[in-house]
């Protein structure tokens, strides 16, 4: 009789942090679920069907700028305001002559020329990172290019 009526701890007590150490995993899970349910019930939510936002293939855009390639709104003619005239060229060329500008930029320095220029730089920069001892080994030849002399230092017997 007494065994059947084993005193049970209340749920609220079991939920406390220090009581959970001794619990087995089964009751722990049960408690957690109940707690989640309580939280869920306390949240407000509207009874609406889930909004299924499909990816739209129509993009709204209310600006005429995109549609009509309009010019920049400030203009000056025949040197009335040189500042604005400079600005006009700059702003309007941004739209039209972008491609031509890019081409011109590329033509400025060709890859070959670049490589030729950097050829001479390799030694100069190399010298910067070389140690003092190595630097002594570097010698400039007649072209100004640097050359390493690989002659190893050996003790030279003084002549008598």
């Amino acid at each position, binding site marked *: 009789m007494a065994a059947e009526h084993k005193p049970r701890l209340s749920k609220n007590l079991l939920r406390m942090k220090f009581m959970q150490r001794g619990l087995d995993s089964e009751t722990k899970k049960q408690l957690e679920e109940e707690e989640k349910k309580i939280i869920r019930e306390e949240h407000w939510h509207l009874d609406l069907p889930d909004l299924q936002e499909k990816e739209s293939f*129509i993009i*709204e855009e209310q600006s005429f700028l995109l549609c*009509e390639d*309009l010019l920049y709104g400030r203009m000056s003619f025949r040197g009335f305001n040189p500042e604005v005239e400079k600005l006009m060229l700059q702003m309007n060329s941004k739209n039209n002559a972008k491609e031509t500008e890019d081409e011109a930029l590329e033509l400025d320095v060709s890859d070959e020329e670049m490589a030729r220029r950097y050829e001479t730089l390799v030694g100069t920069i190399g010298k910067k990172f070389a140690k003092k001892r190595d630097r002594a080994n570097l010698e400039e030849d007649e072209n100004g290019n640097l050359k390493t002399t690989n002659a190893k230092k050996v003790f030279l017997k003084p002549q008598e």
Partner: protein
Amino acid sequence: MAEAATLAAESLAGGKARAARTVLGQVVLPGEELLLPEQEDAEGPGGAGGRPLRLSPGVRSRVRVVCGPGLRRCGDRLLVTKCGRLRHKEPSGGGGGVYWVDSQQKRYVPVKGDHVIGIVTAKSGDIFKVDVGGSEPASLSYLAFEGATKRNRPNVQVGDLIYGQFVVANKDMEPEMVCIDSCGRANGMGVIGQDGLLFKVTLGLIRKLLAPDCEIIQEVGKLYPLEIVFGMNGRIWVKAKTIQQTLILANILEACEHMTTDQRKQIFARLADT
């Protein structure tokens, strides 16, 4: 024009959506529904009948289409909200290009990114109130000028003209202007200089004048040394050497909306003589 209008009205009465491709350059009316090219072929003869077909995703590959001013997206449908001619621009890259309605109107509705001319109406603490011709004055922070800091305030007085750009403009919020670009440079924005004359024209005329191949502006530029500022809100500010020249320019610009090319050429020839 009148024929086109009756045609449009007829089709509207019929309640049938027309294909956008077939009405390019024609008059469309508010409330009308347009079908995009990939929607129309689904609606072949005996297809979906009178009802426009709602596209189900994944049926066929679709391209992105931009609907500009005067058009509105409603789910998968494309609706017309303004009266005017339907225009289309071919895409530079991929996609379906841009559709928009070329309409005549005088009332300006702020649009993000537009360059406009505003009049400072009030200075209150950190912001200026700027009248741009919209339903509500726009706000302009004193920090939104080139080189402005908390200590170094820009010299802006009530009544000054401001050339600026909208950064916030939607139907629910107060529009907000700035006078710098994303890099913090003025790029011509800010207070417009002294003197000059400000007048209002229709929004359509502004777009016509700002078109890249506009002859009117080129001809005007040959007439006198002058400076012009165009605001997308229908305001034009002109300044020339003398008041007389300024007035002549303002009158020409105002009148050229309803002139034929020949009439305009005549007037320019007459002015060039004097």
